[in-house]
């Protein structure tokens, strides 16, 4: 037992998610991510269960913990009532707090998520808005999306959204007092500090990689690196 294992045990999701594993593999057999990635939730449970800090540190620094889609299929099947998906959440949190996430390609993407979704929540009240799905960064969306993207106000009107306007309806502008409340919640609950931590660790990594991370948004070399880099070693 060690420091990392003890910290994991402080996380309720770890306590709830992993009571005892008998390595039956039913979680891996049902896991959509295991079908796609080099990913095995059973092995993760086994690693944590062994309480060996060296292996846990390796896990926290690896791509592995970032492959899970948190669909929680594993919860539906485990004969011991474990939830590997919850364990993953605890591992991710610890990896973020320790700064280990910058050691892996998939982990470094936390930076992009913080800059895109994190900022979006604090500045607009939405996790995701259509304007964030830039066709240049998302070729997989195809030409129809590109057309929608270029004609957003008109398309939104057509589908009955109240796009960026005051009053009720989908995709409305969030009122400033509500937005300020959201920001306060993030302040009080430690969400802001957590975002700041991701920023700091990511900037250190950017320096190490001799890439500029900018102060805001995705218009910088480090963002582009983490957003587009694919070693092709994930399957």
């Amino acid at each position, binding site marked *: 037992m060690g420091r990392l294992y003890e910290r994991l045990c402080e996380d309720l999701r770890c306590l709830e998610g992993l009571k005892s594993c*008998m390595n039956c593999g039913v979680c891996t*057999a049902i896991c959509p991510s295991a079908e796609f990635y080099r990913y095995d939730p059973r092995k993760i449970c086994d690693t944590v269960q062994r309480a060996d800090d060296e292996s846990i540190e390796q896990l926290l620094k690896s791509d592995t913990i970032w492959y899970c889609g948190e669909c929680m299929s594993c919860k539906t099947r485990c004969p011991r009532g474990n939830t590997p998906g919850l364990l993953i959440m605890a591992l991710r949190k610890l990896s973020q707090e320790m700064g280990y996430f910058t050691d892996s390609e998939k982990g470094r993407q936390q930076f992009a998520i913080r800059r895109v979704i994190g900022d979006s929540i604090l500045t607009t009240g939405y996790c995701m808005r259509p304007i964030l799905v830039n066709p240049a960064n998302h070729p997989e969306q195809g030409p129809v999306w590109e057309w929608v993207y270029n004609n957003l106000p008109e398309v939104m009107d057509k589908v009955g959204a109240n796009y960026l306007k005051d009053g009720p309806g989908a995709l409305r502008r969030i009122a400033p007092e509500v937005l300020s409340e959201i920001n306060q919640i993030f302040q009080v609950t430690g969400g802001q500090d957590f975002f700041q931590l991701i920023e700091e660790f990511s900037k250190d990594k950017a320096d190490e990689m001799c890439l500029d991370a900018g102060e805001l948004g995705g218009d910088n070399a480090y963002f582009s690196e983490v957003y587009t880099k694919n070693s092709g070693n994930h399957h």
Partner: protein
Amino acid sequence: MNKTIVIVGGGPAGLEAAAALGSSPHHVLILEKEHNTGGKLKNWHHLFPNFADASEILKSLEKSLPLNNSEIKYDCDVFKMEQMDGNLLVSLKSGEKIKADAVLLATGFDLFDAYKKEEYGHGIYKNVITSSELEGMFVNNSFPDQLKDGLPKKIAMVHCVGSRDKKAGNMHCSKLCCITGVKQAIELRKYLSKSSVYNFYMDLRMYGQHFEELYQEAQEDYGVNFIRGRVSEIAEISDGKLQVKAEDTLSGRPMKMIFDLVVLLIGMTPATSAASIAQSLALPKSGSGFLAPVHQHISANETCIPGLFLAGTCREPLSLQESITDARAAALKIIEWLKLKDNH
């Protein structure tokens, strides 16, 4: 003074206990809920680990039933018991009440209802059957036509169905499904010689005499395959073929395999027929709901109710051999207890 001993259940444990009590002067009354004795043994073909003929064993159990002091009542549903002046009053659904000096519960077990594991598709896909249904096919020689066309078949045996499973409400290990899976895999290889059989297991608990040897025989002489991984789900694809998903945990990769037939090795669960009796006497139960004796090690056949004894699988999953031994032990305890009762 001669006493009345009531045995609830005319399966192997009940029959053996009655035989063992044959030398006593007491009157033994077996209350059987079905039309005939034998319990689940009468639906079994051959037994592990030596392929003994189940019907022969049943015949010899029935033959050893003493004629002078024992009696069997069929179609008897016992639903209640109460303590009365040091005796037990046994109530049948028919309204009849029987006063007993001692009662032996030999109510046996239920087979796990595989439909509860919906993800395995029993009762949904026609080619998903249980181990008990497979025995029935051997007994009646009634294999489905699609298995008899002479073409090579792929068959999966799924272990731990309804055992070692919090989701199914059964944390216990039924302990006999492992060896049953090995035995039935060999029988399938003998019966369908071109078939290949794959056992999906978590652990193979070969605890009994000659179990491990049979496992080795299955691998070496019959080419039975063993994959270490619990099956997550089964889906019908086309032509009634079944896709089985599991992780091969030894290579650490998830896999999907296609089979013609899937056999679910269903475990033992507490008999529902004993539930109302246990309730009427507030009899303690173990975690999985089997009837609990006073002491697992030294008083395994005795209960906290004076004059009430347990034998066989109403207490815990046991093999036939163990049930029979257990019944004899219970019979001895009953004789001792009646002697004590006489002296008071």
